[in-house]
């Protein structure tokens, strides 16, 4: 994904063609799988912040869309939800104005603000990113359903697609890791750059909003895989083979960006983010046979190819049967269910996480910080997850323990601020 934007154009073009052939004219396009590469072109007529990924390691903050959505995935994430402690809309406006200015500076590799030369005051910037490059830092803001309760008089502005996430089969959702008034997704190719940004945003928020949850995540770094092949999740399988090519404007409009057909006008240029904290039962998975593991995913582990095929991007052909008449790819395998008959697509942008050891069990506390963007979760993420939750063979090895749905605001123009179409 990351630098693949520049280097793997050929390969993607080939996939692109296959994909486009399969899609032709469908409303919502489909695909399971997480994070294949996108081209860094604008997705709409106007330039977007995420479009500039190709300019060195600096991704501009301002643009029609927020960066960090169709931006090729960076190596690290720091993500947090905040709850507002103020009940004044003026304070919320001020918070987003301050956050916007700080974000624009930090994504450009600058400190959060100019230092005041007074030794009796704490430094304005916390300092751990001094001298560091911007490292493709992006900062993306979204609003949870709770933001639209009675506190700020914005109840009537709540977008219809921003529903309460339904309870899915076998969910074990912990409220401490779920929802929140505001979500902030910080991504960068350096973990310290990402942490620095989140820390300073949290500091700016003090007195107006408090941290509700925070989680850091990673994937293999681009330097570990210069070819930019599909990354693997912590279960060892390639994750994201079928992700849509979000750099394709038509595709992004159909899959990702809010549309006036179902979203209010203030969401133009925005999108909806679904977040799921998925704990993986690492130890249990490690004890299952290769055959079981591959049958669970519906793909071969090494190549990522559909069962019975040799190429990662080969067509699934779910109808294929073995000599005894049984489907080669089990109907309850992850890939078969997530395929959704090719009719529903989401843009996945997930990271792995490890929170060290579970002190209760002594096991490894790790999993997937699943993030996806979609134009209308009622028609995309939610039906897909309903299907997966009800039958996915993978459920034996994973538990959904955190959940959130957020309306990601449109991008801001220089001089404006994130949220100015709403506030």
């Amino acid at each position: 994904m990351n630098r693949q934007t520049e280097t793997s154009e050929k390969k993607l073009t080939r996939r692109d063609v296959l994909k486009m052939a399969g899609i032709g004219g469908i409303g919502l396009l489909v695909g399971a799988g997480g994070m294949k590469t996108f081209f860094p072109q604008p997705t709409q007529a106007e330039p977007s912040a995420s479009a500039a990924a190709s300019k060195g390691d600096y991704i501009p903050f301002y643009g029609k869309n927020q960066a960090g959505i169709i931006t090729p995935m960076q190596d690290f994430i720091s993500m947090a939800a905040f709850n507002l402690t103020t009940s004044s809309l003026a304070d919320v406006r001020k918070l987003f104005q301050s956050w916007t200015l700080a974000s624009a500076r930090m994504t450009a590799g600058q400190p959060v603000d100019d230092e005041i030369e007074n030794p009796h005051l704490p430094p304005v910037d916390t300092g751990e990113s001094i001298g560091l490059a911007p490292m493709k830092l992006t900062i993306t803001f979204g609003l949870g359903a709770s933001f639209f309760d009675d506190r700020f008089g914005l109840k009537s502005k709540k977008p219809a697609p921003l529903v309460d996430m339904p309870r899915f089969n076998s969910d074990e959702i912990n409220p401490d890791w779920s929802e929140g008034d505001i979500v902030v997704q910080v991504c960068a190719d350096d973990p310290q750059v990402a942490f620095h940004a989140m820390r300073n945003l949290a500091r700016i928020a003090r007195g107006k909003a408090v941290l509700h949850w925070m989680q850091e995540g990673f994937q293999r770094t681009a330097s570990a895989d210069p070819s930019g092949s599909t990354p693997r999740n912590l279960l060892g399988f390639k994750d994201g083979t079928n992700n849509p090519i979000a750099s394709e404007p038509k595709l992004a409009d159909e899959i990702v960006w809010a549309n006036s057909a179902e979203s209010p006008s203030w969401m133009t240029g925005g999108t909806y983010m679904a977040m799921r904290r998925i704990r993986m039962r690492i130890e249990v998975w490690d004890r299952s046979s290769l055959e079981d593991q591959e049958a669970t995913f519906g793909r071969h582990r090494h190549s990522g190819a559909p069962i019975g095929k040799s190429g990662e991007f080969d067509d699934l052909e779910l109808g294929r049967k073995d000599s005894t008449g049984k489907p080669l790819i089990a109907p309850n395998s992850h890939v078969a269910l997530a395929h959704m008959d090719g009719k529903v697509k989401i843009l996945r942008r997930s990271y792995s996480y490890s929170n060290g050891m579970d002190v209760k069990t002594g096991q490894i506390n790790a999993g997937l910080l699943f993030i996806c963007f979609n134009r209308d979760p009622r028609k995309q993420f939610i039906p897909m997850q309903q299907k997966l939750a009800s039958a996915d063979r993978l459920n034996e090895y994973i538990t959904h323990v955190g959940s959130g749905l957020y309306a990601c605001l449109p991008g801001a123009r220089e001089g404006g601020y994130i949220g100015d179409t709403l506030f």
Partner: protein
Amino acid sequence: MRKQWGYPLTAIALSSSLVFTGCGSSESKTTSEVKPEAAAQTEQKTHAATTPELDAAIANYHKWVIEQTDLFVKATDGFTQAVKAGDIEAAKKQYAPARMYFERIEPIAESLGDFDPWLDAREGDVPAEEWRGYHRLEKALWETKSVAGQEKIADQLLQDAKQLRVKVESVEIDPLMLVTGAVELLNEVSSSKVTGEEERYSHTDLCDFAANVQGANEIFKVLQSSVANKDPELAKEIELRFQELDQALAPYQKEQDYVLYTELTEPEVKKLSQALDALAEPLSKMGTILGG
């Protein structure tokens, strides 16, 4: 009490028999023990960096510190008498309220040498043979449940308190001490009170919490006009955050006391901690009055 100390005990005998006043009552009447020349003395300690306005603020604060220390001696007297009389229930009742006077002025006590380790060391903060003060008696009252043989510790505690009162009379306070002291008080809360680590046996951490915040508020009050002159927005924000923190603490106050730390749920602790951070952040910018 945060650091490690190890010092020989010094005993200064003063006598006093004052009556104890209750927990949470920061507004308790001041005693007639305040030496009239106390406030006047401080005004001579003008430092280069100060202004007449700051000098006045320091004088006001010094006066208040002396009042608090008088009340501390009085309350410590009542507490140690109960310990020596073997009246465990009476001693337990007086423990947290007495400590609050000290917690309000902790940065000043810390600037005066070893009063903090003498009065406020927790077990393990100092070598076992040097451990004395409030927390040693706390352990006897709540953990060992016996005050037999604690008379010496009680006497020493009262002497230490009285010696603090003597030292406070002539303490040198400069504007930087005030500004950093306010934040230090809140950092005390962050590092030990909000985690329930200060009062291991009595679990009266919320009394210390409230007292530290009151101490910081007192500093802000004397500096408020200076802050407002330099940065009116900042002064307004600090004032608001103090109000919000008071509101956050209010549900846990019962009459003159606070609920035990162990009665708080995890979300309640988090809420208090975050309200404290919301105040400490703007408070840390009070240094703006000292110029660059």
